[in-house]
């Protein structure tokens, strides 16, 4: 069984904002996230067109080796005001967003057996 967990950012960008959001995410947010122990799995854009008159949905998936690593990641990020500030700064480009934490289906029973 793997203990790997995934952090999934799902961001619906305002029309015309998808490209600049992805660029900022990769240039400004991702380096700190890596330092906190996250590994970037993929950045998906739906539909794969940089719309200027429609919303796009950006789905970014990170992985961490275990729930313990997730806690260590978030314990590093929370006291750092620049992390929350980054999300506040890109707020004007975002129509809606969510952050979820997930695991592979075959790992669910093991992760719940603590």
């Amino acid at each position: 069984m793997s203990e790997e967990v995934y952090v999934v950012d799902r961001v619906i960008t305002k029309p015309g904002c998808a490209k600049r959001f992805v660029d900022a995410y990769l240039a400004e947010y991702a380096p700190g996230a890596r330092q906190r122990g996250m590994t970037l799995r993929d950045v998906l854009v739906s539909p794969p067109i940089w719309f200027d008159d429609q919303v796009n949905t950006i789905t970014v998936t990170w992985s961490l080796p275990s729930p313990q690593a997730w806690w260590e990641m978030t314990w590093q990020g929370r006291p750092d005001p620049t992390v929350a500030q980054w999300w506040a700064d890109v707020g004007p480009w975002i129509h809606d967003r969510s952050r979820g934490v997930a695991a592979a289906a075959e790992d669910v029973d093991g992760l719940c057996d603590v």
Partner: protein
Amino acid sequence: MFNVTTLVHTEARDAVVAALRSAVHGVPDALIAPTLPGVRNGGDVLMHLGFHDDRDWPRVRARIDEALSTPAVTRVDSVTYRGTLVGPENPDGSVYRALFLRVAPDTPDDVVERFEADLAALPRYVSTITAWQLSRVEEATGVSDWTHVFSQRFTDLAGLTGPYLMHPIHWAYVDRWFDPECPEYIVRDRVCHSFCALPH
């Protein structure tokens, strides 16, 4: 039940424990103990008092205030609230834990209710919680204007530091309310996470 939970920051924990125990003499449901290693912002002494109602509280409070009126006490966080433990009549457990938190004041009522429902769901998934209580605070003192207190009895210390933290219900579901990276973030002040041993 009318409840009082107090977290005392002090370097003179033995003296403070003794003074508080003397001050609450006659209160049938009184837990006063040094906190255990691992608390965060949780103080050095934890006190929990349970009363049938709030009639006796002013008299007891005056004695407690006097006991804590010493330079050895550097900070006190305290909450009063109502409600009873959810669980068996005589729950097992060797560790009592209290979480003080403040929901941001601009949070809509329906969001607060969803948050409370999520917290209340947590004990269903963490088998090491033997009893619990989630209450809105009536009166708060300390570094924040605390709005909620979430208390639990745990089977043992390992049950708090292991399954409680490591179950996905915590890190993949409930914690989003406390996480500045999540849009649901409403608990913005630093929480008090405190725990102590229960008497045998």
